[in-house]
């Protein structure tokens, strides 16, 4: 297992290197320049500014310089956001985005599993119908629509939560719900389908024949075996929650990182684009690594290293 994880970490850096290189050259192909007032600058001024940011060099030299800095953990300074170092920029804006993203993933996955399990155990009853209805709503309502609806009713009309504020845990509840709807719906659908299958399998019948109560049959045998497809979709789901969070952050005025990402692209803020891309990639690779490790923990047939003599 340790060897496997070390191998994966090596691949993580390799992947990051490739992503950083690709992004660097693609970014240079973006039309426009980082300087919004370029037209009003004299050629000499422009030359000075470009030299200051190292943009007068050939793209290849810029690439080598950037990668050199990256190796030392230096992501450069932003062109747009008050000349701040990109690391500091990410550092400040990261916490709120990560908080609502992680909360939404946890809430969505846990409640999705519960909802799907209830639907499967009470198959073809009103509980199943209700669970299916809720999960289809979660799947089909876009997060920004849900966000606005939650904001209007729970915050504006009934005043249970703040409309758009970022200070304590309470202010994170509405954005979390808005973001959790999609993972909840997805997980519940997958969970129900798989668990219906599992509940009719031979080993569940054997578990009953051993004298397990219905509750124990579910908790000791059915749940774990139903989780495998759910784990599979956690990775892609984390991607959509993280990217989907930008709009929701905007609606609730959360000082998250999504806004910077969009702005950095429209203004050709090269160091910020690079920094955020590398950072998001790193995060997603980590999520996939965790998913792969979870697989092995849940299903011994997928376990790596010492596994599989048939």
């Amino acid at each position: 297992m340790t060897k496997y994880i070390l191998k994966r970490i090596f691949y993580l850096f390799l992947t990051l290197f490739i992503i950083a290189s690709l992004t660097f050259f693609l970014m240079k192909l973006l039309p426009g320049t980082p300087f919004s007032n370029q037209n009003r600058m004299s050629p000499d001024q422009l030359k000075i500014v470009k030299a200051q940011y190292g943009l007068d060099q050939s793209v290849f030299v810029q690439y080598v310089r950037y990668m050199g800095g990256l190796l030392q953990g230096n992501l450069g300074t932003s062109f747009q956001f008050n000349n701040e170092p990109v690391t500091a920029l990410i550092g400040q804006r990261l916490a709120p985005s990560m908080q609502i993203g992680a909360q939404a993933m946890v809430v969505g996955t846990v409640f999705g599993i519960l909802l799907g399990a209830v639907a499967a155990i009470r198959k073809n009853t009103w509980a199943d119908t209700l669970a299916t209805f809720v999960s289809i709503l979660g799947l089909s309502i876009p997060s920004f629509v849900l966000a606005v609806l939650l904001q209007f009713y729970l915050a504006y009309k009934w005043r249970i939560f703040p409309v758009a504020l970022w200070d304590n845990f309470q202010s994170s509840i509405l954005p979390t719900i808005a973001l959790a709807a999609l993972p909840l719906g997805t997980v519940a659908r997958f969970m129900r389908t798989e668990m219906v299958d599992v509940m009719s399998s031979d080993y569940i019948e054997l578990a009953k024949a051993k004298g397990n109560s219905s509750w124990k049959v579910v908790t000791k045998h059915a749940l774990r075996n139903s989780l495998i497809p759910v784990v599979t979709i956690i990775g892609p789901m984390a991607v959509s929650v993280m990217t989907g969070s930008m709009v929701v952050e905007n609606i609730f005025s959360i000082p998250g990182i999504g806004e910077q990402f969009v702005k950095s692209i429209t203004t050709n803020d090269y160091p910020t684009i690079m920094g955020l891309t590398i950072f998001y990639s790193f995060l997603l690779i980590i999520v996939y690594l965790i998913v792969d490790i979870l697989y092995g923990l849940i299903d011994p047939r997928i376990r790596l290293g010492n596994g599989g003599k048939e």
Partner: protein
Amino acid sequence: MDKILEVKDLHVDFDTYNGVVHAIRGVNFHLNAGETLAIVGESGSGKSITVRSILQLLASNATISKGEILYHGDDLLQKNAKEMDNLRGNKISMIFQDPMTSLDPTMTIGKQVAEPLLIHNNVSKKDALKRAEEVLRLVGIPNPAARMNDYPHQFSGGQRQRIVIAIAIVDYPEILIADEPTTALDVTVQAQIIDLLRELQQKIGTSIIFITHDLGVVAGIADRVAVMYAGRFVEYGSVDDIFFNPQHPYTWGLLDSMPTLDTNEDARLNSIPGTPPNLLDPPAGDAFAPRNAYAMQIDEEQQPPFFQVSKHHFAATWLLHPDAPKVTPPAGILNRYEKFKKLGGNAK
């Protein structure tokens, strides 16, 4: 002999989209302490449903509409869910057909074998696992101590069936129900599993109900045999009674379609023509009548009662009625009667 289990007039119905299927239509039998009763019949005859009714492990659309299942005189059909949980895996346990799918793929086999002990007895996890290891050795898993933490996919089909058997016997059940335990295994492994069951029966003194459609397997393990057709028993008796003095034309058909050592190499194997009746609308008379070359008018109209052939041998066919005309069974069956006489039996 002690009757430890007695099934009386069992009826099981299944609710389906097409209507109610009367899958079991009045089954009566008993099980003596320490014996092996085999129930044979073709697919869909109701063998599995009959034994699953005992443990009440039926599909959700099944209802036991009538009957009694007496375990030491107590009707199991009157017990609540918790009382049934206490019996399952403890007093009455079950071995399933397909060892490839009947073990939980995500649990170590040590834990799976120890599970019934932890459910039913007040034992520590450590003691339960120790006992599981002993039982795994008993069923012939090599080096059980090292393999306790392995998962089902790390075992072969035959070994997995041994593990399933270990789970069934770990709590010394009084009754072991084996639902076609050898069907999914290849022939050499089948023989090993049958030997193992016989050996275990002697060691722990359990009674076995053995379901199969393979008459060859029956001869190897059973004390008594019941032949089942379309949701009813048609004939039951000792192994010798059924194999060498069969009376019901369906039993004749089954035995005649089984190749024996005397079967000529070039001969075509016999089969029973036709298909079993649709139990959505069960026939009024003998369900086998439409496929029966010896059927009489009354077979179509009226269900035959059980006629006693010898002390423990009964068959439900009108051919045994005193007024029935004498018929000559197929040649293969007449050969069997000859053997029965040599065995000292009193063949008809």
